[in-house]
């Protein structure tokens, strides 16, 4: 199999992204660059209270503002609940939303929609709206949410479509218990059992382009939605549910997207302009301000994880018991699913005799959480990897060594990963390589640099999945055109990830042509074949597989038509990318002529679609080692060098795999060191701008070095697995480990602020 990878012409090559030159020269390709000037401006008035009933909205003064076209409140919208989570139907996320609700559940929850001819008119109207609230006591502490007498969703028309253990009368969005083996028995036999509790906060995806959607009615009286989204097909269903209109009346497409990272796997902006356009018949757009994107969106789930880990004195890990409490906030988007990854994508990193993984997901009166790169795995891996590092410290074993002793290998059955067998795993090679890259043996644990500064190293491993097994659908349509060029039509969404190019590379490899010979179109619910969308690390693996399958079948069609043109037996003809030929006679017919023929007196369909789902979700693996400098007097942590080695199977495009990794690590460093969603005691989100929610700038860390150690995944296209999400998972535990090695402190709550280090050191002294 490795030989096939070696002889590839297009796959594995660092090919420039198809849209790259348009992007670097600033061409108008994003939503707000392409919409007409005449659309209505749509904005919403947001609740100032974390829990309240809207008694009355006085629209009188607001509706007199010249240019205001419509003001809508909860009485004006359909009363059937739905979820905004972009998931396959029936969604595990509960149906707990209305477009506008009389009951507002967090500071920022929409109270009214205002549409007007221009922004000034809408802003003025928003100011003039007078709302009378019945203010209720909010539930803000997620540790007290389960069975609290304050109910976030007391309503009777709340419903859960899937058996996820949800119960709105207990503030439960989901609850489950899973195990393998007898955890208590094995733990009781262990020499050492550590119990530790870890806490990760909500984080904002903070993609540079905020949420935005444009809507208009087309010639056929259908609602057209052009949105910055990762999930066009789910948007169609969700808008249909929200507006109570048939799906056949809706078309959704996407332009270039200015980043997503999971944020745009939830419907955040779409329903509001969709509602306005549907009721007024006029084009409209809604563009979230950065403040709205910060306070009323879909951040990472805050989680508290308690790990019990048992081992023998020699370092052999025998059992892991994990309980996760996840905070879904006011609504349940992605609540029941993200939590699962905190255990199912952390525990299988180690071969243990027994494990248990229980969780509760609770409602509170803060902004709803959602999908963010890593999707629960990031939180769980921080907890488990730190627990392993704490165990190593307790047993006085090098944290590299404890991993070498216990990690998962190719061929192992991963019981905590739904019993899947690890068919492709180079984690051992990844770990060995990062150990070399960071010069671990010389640098572990630390060196005193004087002036209170200490340099140290830390390590962590990670895994993720590649698509959701037995659920996600990836599809690709390929067709032959004049001159023999191809069109690849997909429903997956390139949000800067480069999937348009990556999928074209796969098709080009099969069809033995140049990538430029494949035009890519996506994603459009009317034109694209059905695809779940770009999330769950699914596009390269699953849509890639569909593209591969489609291209293989199209080859057969090309040979069939070529053979017919030559009057030869198709079984004896071959195709080399530029011509179909008959080796025995030396006859051939060019791809250009085949393209022409496909459009002239032709009965062979030269366009086809392939779809696929996967029975498995092969995990990519990764190891990372970091060198930091900790200033023990101020608590400042400087990341000097971050070495990461990834096993994503075959990297289809090494450049794009590399930048994904560097970018994910950058985000992870932000999460580890300073990104944090904070609330006031009244439940108001404080980090409402990039001034108060600091993203890593390029001066915030030193170098990131990335290498690949590839395994070959037999079920993936050309041996590929995923890479999009796993890359954010290592910084929290690796940096936590390095900080311990410098200071003797395990910081168990992210982010590791300078203050936590200083205060921890002072406490240790006393």
């Amino acid at each position, binding site marked *: 199999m490795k030989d096939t990878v070696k002889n590839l012409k297009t796959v594995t090559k660092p090919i420039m992204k198809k849209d790259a030159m348009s992007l670097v020269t600033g061409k108008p390709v994003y939503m707000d660059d392409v919409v007409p000037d005449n659309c209505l401006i749509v904005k919403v008035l947001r609740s100032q209270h974390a829990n309240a009933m809207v008694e009355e909205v006085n629209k009188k003064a607001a509706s007199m503002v010249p240019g205001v076209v419509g003001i809508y409140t909860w009485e004006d919208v359909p009363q059937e609940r739905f979820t905004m989570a972009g998931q396959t139907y029936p969604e595990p996320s509960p149906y707990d939303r209305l477009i506008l609700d009389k009951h507002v559940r967090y500071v920022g929850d929409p109270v009214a929609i205002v549409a007007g001819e221009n922004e000034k008119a809408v802003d003025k109207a928003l100011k003039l709206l007078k709302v009378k609230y019945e203010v209720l006591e909010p539930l803000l502490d997620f540790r007290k949410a389960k069975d609290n007498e304050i109910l976030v969703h007391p309503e009777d028309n709340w419903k859960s479509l899937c058996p996820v253990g949800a119960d709105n009368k207990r503030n439960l969005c989901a609850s489950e218990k899973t195990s393998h083996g007898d955890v208590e028995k094995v733990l009781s036999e262990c020499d050492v059992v550590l119990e530790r509790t870890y806490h990760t906060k909500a984080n904002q995806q903070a993609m540079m382009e905020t949420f935005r959607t444009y809507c208009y009615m087309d010639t056929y009286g259908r609602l057209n939605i052009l949105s910055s989204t990762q999930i066009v097909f789910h948007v169609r269903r969700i808008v249909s549910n929200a507006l109570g209109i048939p799906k056949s009346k809706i078309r959704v497409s996407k332009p270039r997207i200015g980043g997503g990272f999971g944020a745009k796997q939830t419907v955040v902006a779409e329903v509001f302009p969709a509602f306005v356009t549907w009721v007024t018949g006029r084009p409209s757009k809604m563009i979230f301000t950065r403040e709205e994107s910060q306070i009323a969106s879909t951040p990472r789930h805050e989680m508290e994880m308690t790990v019990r880990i048992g081992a023998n004195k020699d370092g052999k890990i025998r059992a892991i018991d994990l309980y996760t409490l996840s905070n879904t906030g006011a609504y349940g988007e992605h609540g029941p699913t993200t939590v699962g990854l905190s255990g199912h994508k952390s525990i299988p990193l180690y071969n243990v005799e027994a494990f248990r993984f229980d969780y509760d997901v609770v409602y509170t009166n803060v902004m709803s959480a959602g999908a963010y790169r890593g999707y629960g795995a990031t939180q769980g891996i921080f907890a488990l990897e730190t627990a392993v590092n704490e165990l190593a410290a307790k047993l006085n074993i090098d944290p590299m060594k404890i991993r070498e002793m216990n990690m998962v290998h190719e061929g192992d059955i991963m019981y905590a990963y739904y019993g899947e067998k690890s068919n492709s795993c180079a984690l051992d090679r990844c770990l060995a390589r990062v150990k070399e890259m960071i010069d671990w043996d010389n640098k572990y644990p630390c060196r005193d640099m004087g*002036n209170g500064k200490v340099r140290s190293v830390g390590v962590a491993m990670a895994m993720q999945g590649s698509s959701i097994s037995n659920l996600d659908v990836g599809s690709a349509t390929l067709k032959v055109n004049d001159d023999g060029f191809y069109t690849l039509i997909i429903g997956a969404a390139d949000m800067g990830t480069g999937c348009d190019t990556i999928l074209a590379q796969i098709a080009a490899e099969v069809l033995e042509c140049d990538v430029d010979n494949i035009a890519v179109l996506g994603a459009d619910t009317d034109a694209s074949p059905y695809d779940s969308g770009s999330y769950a690390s699914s596009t390269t693996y699953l849509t890639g597989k569909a593209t591969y399958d489609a291209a293989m079948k199209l080859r057969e069609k090309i040979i069939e038509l070529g053979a017919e043109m030559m009057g030869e037996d198709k079984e004896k003809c071959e195709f080399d990318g530029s011509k179909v030929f008959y080796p025995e006679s030396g006859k051939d017919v060019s791809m250009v002529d085949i393209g022409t023929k496909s459009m002239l007196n032709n009965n062979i369909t030269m366009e086809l679609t392939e779809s696929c789902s996967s029975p498995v979700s092969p995990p990519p693996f990764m190891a990372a080692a970091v060198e930091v400098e900790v200033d023990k007097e101020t608590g400042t942590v400087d990341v000097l060098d971050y070495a990461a080695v990834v096993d994503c199977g075959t990297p289809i495009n090494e450049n794009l795999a590399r930048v994904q990794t560097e970018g994910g690590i950058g985000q992870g460093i932000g999460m580890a060191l300073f990104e944090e969603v904070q609330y006031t005691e009244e439940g108001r989100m404080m980090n409402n701008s990039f001034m108060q929610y600091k993203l890593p700038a390029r001066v915030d860390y030193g170098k990131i070095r990335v290498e690949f150690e590839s395994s070959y995944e037999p079920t993936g296209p050309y041996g590929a697995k995923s890479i999009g999400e796993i890359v954010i998972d290592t910084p929290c535990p690796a940096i936590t480990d390095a900080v311990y090695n410098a200071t003797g402190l395990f910081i168990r709550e992210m982010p590791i602020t300078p203050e936590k280090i200083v205060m921890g050191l002072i406490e240790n002294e006393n």
Partner: protein
Amino acid sequence: MLTIKEYVKAATIDEAYDLNQKKTNCICGGMIWLKMQRKNVQTIIDLSGLGLDKIEEREDEFEIGAMVTLRDIEENKALNDYTNGAVKESVRHIVGVQFRNVATVGGSIFGRFGFSDVLTMFIALDSYVKLYKGGIVSLEEFAKMPKDRDILMSIIVKKQPLKCVYMSQRNTKTDFPVIACGLSLVGDTYKIVLGARPAKAAAITYKKDESMDIKEFAEKMGEAAAESFDFNTNMRASAEYRKHLAKVIVKRACLKMEGVY
């Protein structure tokens, strides 16, 4: 959301002053802070036509116009030679070059913001503000005055033989400081200025003790400074942590001044 009815580029400082007497009118510097406010302004008064964008060096002083940008003082050689680079150090962490090309010294000083690096820096020097009506007032004094409708025309820095150092501690490299420290030494008297406590910058003086070992002295001065200021908590740091940082940063600034940090 900021709304503005009228924009006037003042032709004379007199005109600017007259316009500014109306409460609904407002002077704009770089606009960065103003733009973030939810405010309805009748007339915005632009001072950029008044020649207040120059840094002048005279024999005994610098005069820095109110419309001089943070980038200008960062790049000004004379000012940085005089302060041994402390002025550059005080502004180079502020967001980015484009931000500093827009934000003005006058805006930063007049706002008397708690987080202001610029205010902290200039109080450490022998600085004065030149007000159109109020005349020349020491910057330390000005920092304590309530905001009025006078116009800040320039900052005057009196030259004297001095040593100075600027240091700050930030949660991220381009964030607001959680503590900012300007330290100057004239003769045997240190002026210790601490800003971002999170209250606005204020100063104390401290006598140099030549008899002590410098490290020991720096430690002692840090402790004295930490005891002399009040510290509070905001979303970036607690009072307790700030107090600890004050000790460290004053100590380090003192050592840095002597070239031993």
